[in-house]
């Protein structure tokens, strides 16, 4: 910041994105997302045959969960900013909220998972539950069919699963809707006081619990549930580490883009990027710490149920991907992000952010996709052939699903950015944030 920012530098009626400049891009994104979604739904409900239906179900979960983590992360940073009474990030808080506000829309892409046509390929435990003969309760059936599922039945049963699904969608959507509304109402209030800031802080406390339950148990239900015999107590925190890191990477990219378009003038500068870079650095390290701990516990204990995860992923070419994660998801960003000058430069930090997002995609690819060949070969060998490390050709479905949900994600993000002022121009702490020095 070259000079001391005063209230005369703040856009009194807000700093609005020129919607006409992004309308072409938005239209293209909407068309891509629309066509992609229609084709995807046809594939998921078996119009192109069982082979595409089964393989594409995994593509869908991969792409869906990848973008869901970014949205959930936006909610997380909003909540953390409010609850920690932060002053530094007031000028970028609206970006947190805008990213978080994509959550209700992205969550809708999970609806196909509710249908047996789709989840029969993903969640084998549901198939065993559904195979209950007439006249028996599910519990009695499981007692004979699979004792592990019998013991897990209090948690892994279809009604509870559906209830949890509704809870994730409604809970966090309401949280981000409420907080964003509270924040944006301040922009036009002729008498903006501290009341909204205090209310946001108060309501963010218990909302953090809703967030924690959502990131943990969506991970359990959508990802860990793909192999009901496997479990890891670090799963929730592992997904959270990647979520916090990469949603911050998206926030860095959005802020860099907005500044290049002439927005966020006087209020966001190198000092803010320095802090966001430091948070990325912290969560790069945290991700490595958690991921290694999970591997280490499983490697040391050597229990059959637990090792299956790494046996699949350290076999064949998947192992190259896993080693890439160690080097490129941790070592390289760790060393690069150590430099203070780099974190203060939006362009260089954006390059690191893009790199980090690529690694996040690889991370989530390795979470979901190696399971495909194993599960499908077990569920329907007559269609998918024997159990295998990977199904040839299914890769194109992964790209298609990623582009579809990615286009939808960018569309709702651009829409959110255009709705309100790009920073809370009447927040009592906006000047404190603009004059940040660290």
């Amino acid at each position: 910041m070259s000079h001391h920012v005063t209230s005369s530098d703040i856009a009194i009626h807000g700093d609005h994105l020129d919607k006409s400049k992004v309308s072409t891009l938005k239209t293209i994104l909407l068309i891509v997302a629309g066509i992609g979604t229609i084709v995807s739904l046809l594939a998921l409900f078996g119009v192109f045959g069982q082979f595409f239906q089964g393989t594409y179900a995994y593509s869908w979960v991969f792409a869906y969960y990848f973008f869901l983590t970014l949205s959930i992360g936006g909610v997380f940073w909003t909540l953390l900013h409010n609850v920690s009474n932060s002053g530094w990030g007031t000028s970028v808080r609206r970006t947190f909220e805008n990213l978080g506000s994509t959550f209700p829309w992205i969550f809708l892409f999970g609806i196909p998972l509710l249908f047996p046509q789709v989840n029969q390929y993903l969640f084998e435990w549901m198939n065993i539950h559904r195979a209950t003969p007439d006249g028996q309760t599910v519990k009695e059936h499981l007692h004979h069919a699979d004792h592990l599922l019998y013991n897990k039945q209090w948690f892994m049963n279809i009604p509870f699963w559906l209830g949890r699904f509704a809870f994730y969608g409604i809970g966090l959507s309401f949280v981000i809707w409420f907080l964003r509304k509270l924040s944006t109402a301040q922009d036009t209030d002729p008498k903006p006081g501290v009341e909204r800031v205090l209310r946001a802080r108060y309501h963010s406390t218990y909302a953090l619990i809703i967030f924690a339950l959502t990131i943990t148990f969506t991970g359990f239900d959508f990802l860990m549930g793909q192999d009901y015999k496997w479990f890891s107590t670090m799963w929730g925190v592992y997904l959270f580490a990647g979520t916090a890191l990469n949603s911050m990477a998206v926030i860095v990219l959005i802020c860099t883009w907005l500044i290049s378009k002439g927005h966020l003038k006087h209020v966001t500068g190198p000092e803010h990027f320095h802090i966001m870079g430091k948070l990325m650095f912290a969560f790069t390290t945290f991700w490595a710490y958690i991921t290694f701990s999970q591997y280490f516990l499983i490697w040391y204990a050597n229990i059959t149920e637990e090792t299956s995860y790494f046996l699949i992923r350290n076999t064949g070419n998947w192992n190259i991907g896993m080693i890439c994660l160690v080097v490129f998801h941790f070592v390289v960003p760790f060393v690069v992000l150590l430099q203070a000058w780099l974190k203060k430069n939006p362009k260089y930090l954006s390059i690191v952010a893009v790199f980090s997002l690529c690694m996040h995609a690889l991370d989530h690819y390795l979470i979901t996709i190696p399971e495909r060949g194993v599960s499908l070969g077990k569920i329907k060998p007559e269609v998918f052939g024997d159990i295998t490390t990977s199904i040839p050709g299914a890769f194109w479905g992964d790209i298609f699903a990623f582009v579809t949900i990615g286009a939808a994600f960018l569309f709702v993000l651009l829409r959110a950015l255009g709705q309100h002022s790009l920073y809370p121009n009447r927040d009592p702490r906006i000047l404190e944030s603009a004059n940040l020095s660290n």
Partner: protein
Amino acid sequence: MSTTRKRVYGYLAEFKSASALYKAAEKVRDAGFSKWDCYTPYPVHGLDGAMGLKRSILPWFVFFGGMTGTATAFTLAYYTQVVLYPTVVQAKPTNIFTIPAFFPVMFELTILFAGFTVLFGLLGLIQLPRLNHPLFASKQFHRATDDGFFIAIEARDEKFSPQGTRDLLADIGGENIELVEEEQD
């Protein structure tokens, strides 16, 4: 009455407030002095920039200190557990693939060595601990820990001159300007 000649340490000047000190520091910086310092009762935000201080070399010490820790731990664990006395635990291999078992030690020693380098590197760079400081000879200097904001310009600075430096300090708002002489033992 003493006839011994004392060595001059430099000029000490008091300023009214933190902001007065901040502005004065910018002017001393622009005048081109290098051997001088500010003394305040509490940390003043951004004063390092106003003084024109360069980034410390300490992070580099810490980086290589940490790397030394990693290498030490790896060597220690590898040599004892693989070379010297191979220990088979739960049928785990005793070769380079035992490395996950060494990671916690490598992590801990990285932190420990980095932490030691921070502490001792910092003490070395700021030349602490020391028994005395020439400024303690000043009668007013103890207020730097209470309500005084001071700038001291050392006589060994190339730009120092008995009259010019005194005038400069007076010009930029310094009060109670004092020529500090080192105490004799």
